[in-house]
């Protein structure tokens, strides 16, 4: 196990002004459902990926029966009551270790604990759980003290087949796969006599990324996602909030601040030009790289029924590597180098990354009858002689003109 530098406050984002709680209805999915990103995208949300029976298993709209999608059933399951026989906790550190052990047994790959900052709790619900008497627009009251942050890793190779049914299935199954362990961990804590709520795909009252960073799971990348030293950004994050007394973890320094400053590989490869090349901006009192959520979301339309989540930024990130000794060596060298000198090591590592994995990482893959080989491009415009190409043959971006970040 690699030792990781602990820090008092996260280095990859900075609180520079007053923050307010976000209304869940301001987040991208509800905006798309209301048509704020255009009627075409709103209609796509209802009918996407409907043509493939296997893909319909994992939810997310389409022609299938919702009751054939376990995700919907799990999302709508009511949470149980707190057991009146509370088990005393003498040592929060011991209890934290036990909770982490249980979470890993249930299926989590990484676990961290932090205090629940109310700024990362939504102010109002976008949907609510009807089985628990909740409805859209209800104010959120989540007075728990702790947030247990869980990360579930997706498969490195299937993600490397990005822009395909294979990577899309892996992404969507990851969302579903994370629900049961999260639900069960919250249930376990309630059975110990303490309030606990599960927050996962389709039902979450918290923003998991800042909580996971505070809990020491990783740092915030240029592409707006958590970067873990071993799994990169291919982690599905869930949270269990609770009042069970627990010892908390500290944020970590794994070199993301310096790496993202110089690397910019995600910005060069992002098909929709949504990741900035420039400096950080400020949103809701937080200084961070501002990703253009609207263009990122609209790029889903390019899937044309094949995929809904492109995951190019996840697979192109230099931290996204298989579990190997040479990745451990690279990580060790980044972490052991003082921050002011890291630029000297980032550039050679980036050069090696481009050389071995390519400037636009992507792998041909055949899996369960799917084949992500690039298809011949056809154009429906009569007479058009423009040479349309697959993503793998497109030119990489080099710079942004506008910096229209929204998240």
């Amino acid at each position, binding site marked *: 196990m690699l030792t990781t530098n602990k820090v008092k406050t996260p280095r990859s984002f900075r609180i520079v002004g007053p923050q307010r709680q976000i209304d869940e209805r301001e987040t991208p999915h509800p905006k798309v459902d209301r048509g704020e990103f255009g009627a075409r995208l709103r209609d796509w949300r209802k009918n996407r990926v409907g043509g493939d029976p296997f893909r319909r298993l994992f939810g997310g709209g389409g022609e299938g029966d919702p009751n054939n999608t376990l995700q919907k059933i799990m999302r709508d399951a009511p949470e149980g009551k707190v057991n009146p026989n509370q088990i005393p906790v003498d040592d929060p550190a011991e209890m934290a270790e036990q909770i982490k052990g249980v979470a890993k047994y249930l299926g989590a790959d990484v676990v961290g604990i932090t205090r629940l900052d109310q700024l990362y709790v939504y102010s109002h619900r976008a949907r609510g759980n009807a089985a628990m008497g909740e409805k859209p627009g209800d104010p959120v009251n989540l007075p728990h003290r702790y947030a247990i942050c869980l990360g579930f890793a997706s498969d490195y190779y299937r993600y490397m087949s990005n822009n395909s049914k294979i990577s899309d299935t892996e992404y969507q199954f990851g969302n579903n796969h994370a629900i049961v362990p999260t639900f069960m961990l919250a249930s376990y804590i309630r059975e110990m006599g303490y309030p606990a709520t599960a927050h996962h795909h389709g039902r979450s009252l918290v923003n998991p990324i800042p909580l996971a960073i505070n809990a020491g799971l990783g740092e915030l990348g240029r592409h707006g996602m958590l970067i873990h030293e071993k799994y990169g950004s291919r982690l599905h994050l869930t949270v269990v909030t609770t009042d069970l007394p627990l010892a908390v973890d500290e944020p970590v320094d794994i070199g993301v601040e310096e790496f993202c400053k110089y690397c910019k590989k995600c910005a060069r490869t992002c098909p*929709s*030009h*949504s990741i900035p090349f420039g400096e950080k901006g400020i949103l809701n009192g937080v200084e961070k790289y501002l990703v253009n959520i609207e263009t990122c979301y609209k*790029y889903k339309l390019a899937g044309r029924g094949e995929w809904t989540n492109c995951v190019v930024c996840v697979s192109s990130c230099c931290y996204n590597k298989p579990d190997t000794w040479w990745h451990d060596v690279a990580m060790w060298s980044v972490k052991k180098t003082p921050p002011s000198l890291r630029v000297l090591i980032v550039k050679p590592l980036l050069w090696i990354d481009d050389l071995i994995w390519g400037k636009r990482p992507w792998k041909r893959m055949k899996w369960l009858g799917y084949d992500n080989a690039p298809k011949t491009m056809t154009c429906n415009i009569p007479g058009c002689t*423009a040479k349309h190409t697959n993503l793998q043959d497109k*030119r990489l*971006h080099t710079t942004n003109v*506008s910096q229209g970040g929204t998240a």
Partner: protein
Amino acid sequence: MAFVIAEPCIGVKDKACIDVCPMDCIHGADKDEMLYIDPDECIDCDGCVPVCPVEAIFPADKIPEKWKHYIQINADYFKR
């Protein structure tokens, strides 16, 4: 909103924009004098703007007054 190709493209048709467009929404035939952006397909990512050698591409709401009619010219190309 969509992006719009304006007069500077006429006679140039460099086509670098086609190489970066993620939606493949920039089209043109050999006989056409310029390239055109399909406003229904464009996702406003601005990827085409920095690669255009003649600075012919603008967001529809920021196009210079003298080229505003190109908004309609681009849209009409796809209604033929």
